[in-house]
């Protein structure tokens, strides 16, 4: 799956989870850039991303991803 498609689908997930249609994520996006993105919403987000791309993050990855770019790298390697 190419990176562009991943970003398009990921963006939809972000908009659903944070209920905000103005969100546009880029590789540098972090939790600081999105108002509601706290540790609890992170759980919902991770879950929704896993479902969208039919893949699982490893335990270590969930807490170590620094930005959306890193998330997309993992998705690209594992998504179906």
């Amino acid at each position, binding site marked *: 799956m190419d990176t562009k498609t991943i970003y398009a689908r990921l963006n939809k*997930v972000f908009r*659903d989870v944070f*209920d905000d249609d103005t969100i546009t994520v880029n590789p540098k996006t972090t939790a600081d850039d999105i108002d509601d993105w706290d540790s*609890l919403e992170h759980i*919902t987000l991770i*879950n*929704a991303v896993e479902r969208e791309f039919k893949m699982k993050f490893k*335990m270590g990855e969930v*807490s170590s991803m620094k930005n959306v770019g890193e998330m997309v790298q993992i998705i690209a390697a594992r998504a179906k």
Partner: protein
Amino acid sequence: MKELEYPFDAEYIIKKRKSLKRALLADGSKRLKKKIAVFGGSTTNDIVVYLELFLLHQGIEAEFYQSEYAQYWQDAMFPSEELLHFQPDIVFIHTTNRNISHYPTVKDDKQTVEELLTAEYEKFEQMWTKIAETYHCPIIQNNFEMPFYRLMGNKDCSDYRGRLNFLTRLNEKFYEYADKTEGFYINDINYVSACYGLKEWSDPFYWNMYKYAMCVDAIPSFSFNLSHIIKSVFGKNKKALALDLDNTLWGGVVGDDGVEGIRIGQETGESQSYYEFQSYIKSLKDLGIILTVCSKNDHENAIAGLNHPEGVLKPEDFIIIKANWENKDRNIVEIASELNILPDSIVFVDDNPAERAIVSVQVSGVSAPEMDGVENYIMTLDRNGYFEVTTFNEDDLKRNEMYKANAQRAAQQATFADYQEYLKSLEMTAVIDDFMPVYLQRITQLSNKSNQFNVTTKRYTPTEMEEVYHSSEYIRLYGKLVDKFGDNGVVSVVIGKKDGAVLNMELWLMSCRVLKRDMELAMLDRLVERCREQGISTIRGYYYPTAKNNMVRELYKFFGFTKISEDEAGNTVWELSTDGYENRNHVIKVEDNTALK
């Protein structure tokens, strides 16, 4: 909202939680406001998010307190200022098998394991007692789900050192407590986790990573199940079923296939499925759920189908049979009005999606679950928790009889020209007296489910009602009505609080099953009598309008009270002097409760 009824799509709910909440809050419906304290032994954030959604859908707008992570014990035993100020209407203790302090080990002897079990149980019982004393409100407690591994394999369930065995016995102890304690309810996560699939439910990833005691996708199922107890405690259960016939209660179309052609009984797998479904419905009737028929059929065909020798349900099991060619939404509205219940207390059961759609759109509040395939019918009704039982008393057992008697009364009424003559012919006898312990449960139940004939719509928890009962500051009356067709049970409750020579009415309610029987006048007569005995010269009544209680807007006027004030919201205050009051009831013979004194 279909999205929030079984079978729901948990993934969708998780993804759309925010927009679903927005839509629910914007639908303009009036909801009960309740405060729920959640004492968690693990993360509770998402549990509360979905619980809030399901409760909004069921007519309750909840405000939440959540303890700090895993502080359930501390919060219960040493309540903070914040918590005391919050004053919960209900406390939910969210503990799971992750919160067991000491499991047995294989090295322990029997005696040690007994002691562990007692210690673990007593920690909980102590907490429940403390909560009940502090907040005087209902308590919901999770039981324990089974662990995700079995050290001893199959033996883990039967050996006293096994974790499965330990948790099972602890659960038993919880049930004993629940069985003898009013206002204490078990949230059966042992069952819910089994239904969901324990393997997925207890995926240790979620505990180790987020300190959730179940996987995130299971949380909606968990909260849905929990919401049933809460809405039931606060009087939001459904009351009646409106059942379609063809392909709902039996296979085939009785009008086309004839009685001998419909599929019900033991012949085939399909007919057995319908038989099982009819048996389930019959058991709901025994629980006090009112059964009615809403079917497009000629009346005689409907009756013939219900008289099928292999069927479980018979025509006399139904209070009302609407078998005609009218639109179903009209029939549902008529059923509701004939039963004196609100349409939103009805569950419409029909295999035809088009009929369900029409009824859902035309009659707001009616539940019309997706009945898709007879093998799924029971599960669909059952999982939706429409009739979640939190109290169960003799009155529930007799409800169908009472409604049946009502139908006979209606038939008799038609033969009288004069309504007073009709009332006299009913040979009514009422017992109207101060509360008695045997009736407290029913009295509390009435205070939580009466919506229409209810001037203040004040709700009481069992503990609050207990306090009213023991306090000398109140004048309390319950009314029980019997007539020649049957015993209606306790149908009216009146509570007033004394303030010098004034009695402030906190509650005046009556079950709609005895409307227009002058029972309210008999209650008033007795109230005035009790006031006079206690030196009270003024009775002050309050009416607070809700979406449902318009029928009693002028009740106090009808009683002869004078309106003292009215505010912009339509809240009114009324007064009546007990001097010179003359009894108004002339058709009901009233007695004290001498039999039970």
